[in-house]
């Protein structure tokens, strides 16, 4: 199952709508990195509203993906962590999700725009 990665100007949007296997998660990670580099994306929002289970492996893939995106120069915001998922992650221990998180996609896009504007090095709306 491939997770579609949508493009809005130079922002990318990935919404995980299905339960992912580990193999799916790794493919998603490589798709994200590739897409960011391909369009020199300024930011990416990763929506995990539909993930009902985020275990230590999935948390690691999400964290690693966020770090990779940042290394390429893109801002990253994760949104939509389910309340029970948040409880479980904290109970399991430590900071399993280190990425910047917000409630929903709307806030994610807003946060990305703010952070990109604060950088001041790129024009958001041109496709170049």
């Amino acid at each position, binding site marked *: 199952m491939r997770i579609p990665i949508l493009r809005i100007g130079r922002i990318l949007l990935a919404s995980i709508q299905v*339960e*992912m*296997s*580990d*193999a*799916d998660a790794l493919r998603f990670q490589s798709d994200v990195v590739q897409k960011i580099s391909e369009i020199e994306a300024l930011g990416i929002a990763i929506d995990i509203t539909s993930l*009902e*289970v*985020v*275990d*230590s*492996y999935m*948390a*690691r893939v999400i964290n690693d993906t966020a770090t990779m995106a940042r290394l390429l120069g893109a801002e990253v915001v994760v949104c939509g962590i*389910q309340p*029970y*998922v948040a*409880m*479980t992650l904290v*109970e*399991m*221990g*430590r900071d*399993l999700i280190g990425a910047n998180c917000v409630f929903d996609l709307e806030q994610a896009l807003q946060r990305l725009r703010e952070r990109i504007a604060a950088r001041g090095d790129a024009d958001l709306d041109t496709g170049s």
Partner: protein
Amino acid sequence: MSTASHGRLDTQLCIAESMDVVRARADARQLASMIGFSPADQTRLATAVSELSRNILQYAGKGHCEMRDISTNDTLGIQILFEDNGPGIPDISLAIQDGYSTGGGLGAGLPGTKRLMDKFSIESRPGLTRVNIAMVRRRA
């Protein structure tokens, strides 16, 4: 047979590939929901099952799990046994320490799972590893 098998056997699953981990956590959630566990507990259980079935895949290649409804008149209960014939866990006390991993993971899987569950036991020797977990709640 398992050493601690009481209660009705509800689900038995083979774990041999990546999709089996997805299936195992979905089955665990469904059984927990049928038994009457809260959504928060369903998530804890599904997460624990995800960790342990992945461990089977990663360290033993294949194995199986058995899920049992162990509810009584006073309590809701679910017990899940994970069993494989892999190389075994050389040092169990090390394996359940935070941050320790031989498989390149975060080292949060086993200690995290232990914290999520009410009962957690491991017996392991070369050729046979059994992890038993259970969650028990007083009926409302």
